[in-house]
């Protein structure tokens, strides 16, 4: 089943409440996905730093000296901010690729949840309310974010099987549905040199988008080609540095509801997820069309770009 939520703020005065609003939406979707939860949140764009969000099942051990070890390996100062099993590493802007490579030598057992200038991804196994509490998601501010509650069908209930999946710098994907050609596509992508870690179908979807964009496609083009190359059911919500995008497969049996006001654009698997948002009574509420790519970004506010797929 799975639940998806997303919130894109137009009104900057709501930014301090982003974490709290998204957390309420996420918890409402618990009965669609009680086994794991995750959130990608886009915060301040500090022009001097980029961020790696990393995870370890033994954070006390692995994170103890990570800040200095990575700083030494990178030859630049690194700042570490730990949250439960996750840590956000502040890397000097422009050194993200080098930092990922250095991390691999410093401690290859540390998993990278996200990399980018503004995105932070937190995800763990457990009830959404417990996951939200572990990472204190309510206190987070930001411009936009997406979240996911998982009911696993295609792979194990593990941290790495939870969503969102980082697809590229500041890009991530959450998915409701199941892909049926993920095994063959995984082999193809692995032959192309794309790193895929788990047996999870959505990770293959995320890797597919990464691969298409490495080949020069824009995110919008990658999403449109996913309609031809991915077999199965999906409602995708994709986070980018500027905003988020939505695409549903042509059959569109996985639910999706959107709401837009002067203050925000919100996405929920069900209307229930949206009912606590301010001004929802007067929001424009609608269901996104099948096989149609929608985008909202801070560059093109309030006009969804519909492209026939």
């Amino acid at each position, binding site marked *: 089943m799975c639940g998806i939520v997303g919130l894109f703020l137009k009104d900057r005065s709501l930014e301090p409440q982003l974490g709290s609003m998204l957390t309420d939406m996420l918890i409402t979707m618990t009965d669609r996905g009680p086994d794991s939860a995750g959130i990608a949140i886009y915060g301040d764009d500090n022009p001097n730093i980029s961020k790696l969000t990393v995870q370890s099942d033994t954070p006390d051990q692995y994170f103890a000296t990570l800040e200095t070890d990575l700083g030494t390996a990178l030859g630049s100062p690194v700042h570490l901010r730990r949250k439960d099993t996750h840590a956000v590493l502040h890397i000097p802007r422009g050194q993200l690729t080098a930092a990922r490579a250095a991390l691999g030598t410093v401690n290859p057992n540390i998993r990278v949840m996200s990399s980018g200038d503004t995105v932070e991804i937190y995800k763990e196994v457990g009830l959404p309310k417990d996951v939200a509490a572990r990472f204190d998601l309510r206190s987070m501010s930001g411009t936009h974010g997406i979240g996911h509650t998982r009911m696993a069908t295609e792979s194990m209930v593990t941290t790495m099987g939870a969503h969102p999946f980082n697809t590229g710098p500041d890009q991530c994907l959450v998915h409701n549905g199941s892909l049926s050609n993920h095994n063959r596509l995984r082999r193809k992508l692995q032959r192309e040199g794309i790193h895929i870690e788990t047996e999870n179908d959505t990770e293959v979807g995320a890797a597919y988008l990464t691969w298409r964009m490495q080949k020069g496609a824009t995110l919008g083009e990658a999403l449109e080609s996913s309609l031809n190359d991915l077999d199965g059911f999906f409602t995708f919500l994709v986070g980018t540095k500027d905003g988020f995008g939505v695409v549903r497969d042509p*059959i*569109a049996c996985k*639910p999706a*509801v959107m709401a837009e006001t002067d203050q925000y654009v919100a996405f929920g698997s069900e*209307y229930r997820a949206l009912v606590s948002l301010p001004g929802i009574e007067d929001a424009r*509420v609608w269901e996104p069309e099948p096989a149609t790519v929608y985008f909202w970004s801070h560059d093109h506010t309030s006009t969804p770009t519909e492209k026939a797929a």
Partner: protein
Amino acid sequence: MQTIDMATTSLRDLNATLQAQAEATNQTAWEIVNPKGSHAIAVGLDAPIEVTVKGSTGYYCAGMNKQATITVNGSVGPGVAENMMSGTVIIDGDASQYAGATGHGGTLIIKGNASSRCGISMKGIDIIVHGNVGHMSAFMAQSGNLVVCGDAGDALGDSIYEARLFVRGSVKSLGADCIEKEMRPEHIALLADLLERGGCDAKPEEFKRYGSARQLYNFNIDNAY
């Protein structure tokens, strides 16, 4: 007027209360407040009562309805009035996928748009949509009438049996074995009645009728067991 507040009453108690109304109840008017997108509101009713839901609902609102008139002052999630037997369900806003699925009777009126699979496998229900319907509407529709005042999406009436489909606007594509059919006087009369019941100001002459070409495998008696 009886009011049930879903902020303080559980869904189970709400439905049990409504389901307990006898045929000859004196409590004929009910109002449900604070639905907040909840699922399965006012399902399985079997009394001639009038229920108004003040807000939008989630999945399966007004499912399996008999006799009752249920009005939703908002939009509804997937599967509204699923398997309705009789009575009337009126949606002021939009309906999500498979509205009126498998309905045997009664009338479903959607004043906004309905999304995909509206009237899938309908078995006698009348569905009147003021706006548009999405793809695969009236898939395997067996009996009853689907009226669409706006446009219909892809694959309308795929594998349809004896249901009648009336569409005023465009049809993106017809499904397998669904064809346009002649509008004879009896269809104009039938549609005029449906439009009046649905509160539509459209004229029956503006519509086209679609139905089964009866060419699929199952229509050939030689294929019967």
